[in-house]
């Protein structure tokens, strides 16, 4: 049943593409973001209805059943997931999208004789499979199903090169002959390449890999649009490819590293394995009551949350502390480093969940000049992102990474679990400075104690 003429179908696809662009455009401000996302979902609905009405389809009951199954599995998971587990969920959804693109390309192969279309099929198969397998490994790392340390073994780079060369050869055969058997070989090689790509990446670098794989899936979908001659898939896939590329670059520069360095760094042996060496130098540690006095009689406080805060589930307590301080007439903001959390912008989501208004969530570039006029910078569960070694020590692994300039504040308070260095394994000189005070303990416990002491002031 084809109720729609090709012209109407094209118009509906165009409308859906415009909805997707508006969805991304809405994200320029938290005010318009939610409406934008709903517009995007509406666009997707329009496109799905359009395909049912415009293409002559068999097996419609089966297809509808499959849609119900997919939605029935994904929607409850999406509704219940904890915000700290967001990175794994995004990786998972990204992987299944890449897998779907690869399967579509595989099934479309017998329908074409055109070498260019076959080239697009080969590209979709390979990139979709890399994205699927890479996302699966990323998910396993984030979910704690496997070690978050870089997994390397001698000969890994050689194996990777062999797999990629074999994939190129298999791809050439597919383009020349259109043989489905070789397409399956290509699919398997792509899965292998995805696993080998992500295995050597360390836990701290996973955010970059997620956004890179997101871009990959986008490109695979765009290529599948070329295969099917479907404009909507081309536009949607390209938009996602662009967003993934921009995010990947933004994350890499926020860590002061190159994307290639992160992906291939572990191959050379220089990865982000955290050091466990604990220094014996003296530091000034203090009680929750003393810190409450520091905070309670300040005029301006900036809270710098790191992933330690999220691990301890302390974001709600941090938000309460901010409220309690604001009630005393103190100006409180949160300074968010771009790589705080486990994916780009993760910390903002965690604090938004704790009802911190988005006006209080300040980007690094906006707030760095304000530390000079700040009485107390409260660093909770963060270390590398405030480490001055990134600016001063040229041999340091984090050298060149932009940091939050907490050292400019009159007083710096660290809530830390121990003196153990952060992911980068670099000692933080700031901990030994005279203006620095430390409170040892779990981030949430420490915050609860400080909060209680502030309320008692």
């Amino acid at each position: 049943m084809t109720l729609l003429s090709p012209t109407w179908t094209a118009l509906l696809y165009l409308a859906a593409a415009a909805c997707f662009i508006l969805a991304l455009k809405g994200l320029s401000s938290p005010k318009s973001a939610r409406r934008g996302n709903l517009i995007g979902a509406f666009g997707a609905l329009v496109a799905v209805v359009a395909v049912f009405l415009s293409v002559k389809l068999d097996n419609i009951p089966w297809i509808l059943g499959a849609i119900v199954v997919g939605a029935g599995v994904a929607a409850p998971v999406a509704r219940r997931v904890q915000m700290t587990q967001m990175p794994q969920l995004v990786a998972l959804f990204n992987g299944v999208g890449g897998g779907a693109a690869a399967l579509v390309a595989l099934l479309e192969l017998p329908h074409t004789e055109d070498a260019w279309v076959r080239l697009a099929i080969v590209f979709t198969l390979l990139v979709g499979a890399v994205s699927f397998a890479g996302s699966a490994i990323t998910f396993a790392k984030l979910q704690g199903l496997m070690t978050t340390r870089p997994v390397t073994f001698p000969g890994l780079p050689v194996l990777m090169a062999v797999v990629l060369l074999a994939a190129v050869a298999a791809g050439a055969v597919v383009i020349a002959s259109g043989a489905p058997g070789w397409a399956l070989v290509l699919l398997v090689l792509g899965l292998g390449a995805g696993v080998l790509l992500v295995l050597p990446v360390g836990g701290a670098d996973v955010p970059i890999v997620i956004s890179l794989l997101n871009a990959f899936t986008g490109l695979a979908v765009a290529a599948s649009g070329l295969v099917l001659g479907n404009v909507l898939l081309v536009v949607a896939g390209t938009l996602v490819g662009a967003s993934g590329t921009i995010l990947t670059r933004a994350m890499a520069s926020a860590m002061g590293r190159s994307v290639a360095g992160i992906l291939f760094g572990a191959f050379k042996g220089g990865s982000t394995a955290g050091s466990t060496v604990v220094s014996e130098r003296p530091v000034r540690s203090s009680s929750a009551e003393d810190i409450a006095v520091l905070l309670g009689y300040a005029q301006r406080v900036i809270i710098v949350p790191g992933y330690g805060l999220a691990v301890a589930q302390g974001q709600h307590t941090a938000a309460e502390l901010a409220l309690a301080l604001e009630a005393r007439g103190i100006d409180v903001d949160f300074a968010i480093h771009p790589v705080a959390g486990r994916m780009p912008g993760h910390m903002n989501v965690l604090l938004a969940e704790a009802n911190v208004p988005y006006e209080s969530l300040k980007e690094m570039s906006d707030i760095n000049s304000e530390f000079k006029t700040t009485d107390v910078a409260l660093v909770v569960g963060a270390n590398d992102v405030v480490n001055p070694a990134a600016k001063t020590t040229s041999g340091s692994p984090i050298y060149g990474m932009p940091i939050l300039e907490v050292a400019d504040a009159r007083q710096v308070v660290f809530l830390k679990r121990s003196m153990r260095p952060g992911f980068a394994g670099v000692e933080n000189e700031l901990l030994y400075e005279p203006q620095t005070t430390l409170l040892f303990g779990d981030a949430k416990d420490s915050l609860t104690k400080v909060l209680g002491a502030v309320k008692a002031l």
Partner: protein
Amino acid sequence: MDGMSLLTITVLAVFVGFEVVSKVSSTLHTPLMSGANAIHGIILVGAIIVAGQASDPWILAVGLLAVVLATANLVGGFVVTDRMLEMFRGRQRPPSSVDAGQATGREGRR
């Protein structure tokens, strides 16, 4: 549609994508990722087409698997993005948590 038109559209989409995404506030990078993720779930359209053209049961099975995966991507992506964006509220919000209200009230009297 002929190859040249598709190529033109692809190149223009690249520029639109870079233009739109580079204006996204870094506060919203996580919703951007999950939103972009949802958008590539539109591969569902392709999955429906290949499943709808399948005559062999094995090919249908693979096509239906693609439909399930793509739907999970599309629906899950939009739902989770909506959930996240719902949490981003401005300063003038109604007192949503009892805790926050009490803290403000108690401190306000001092």
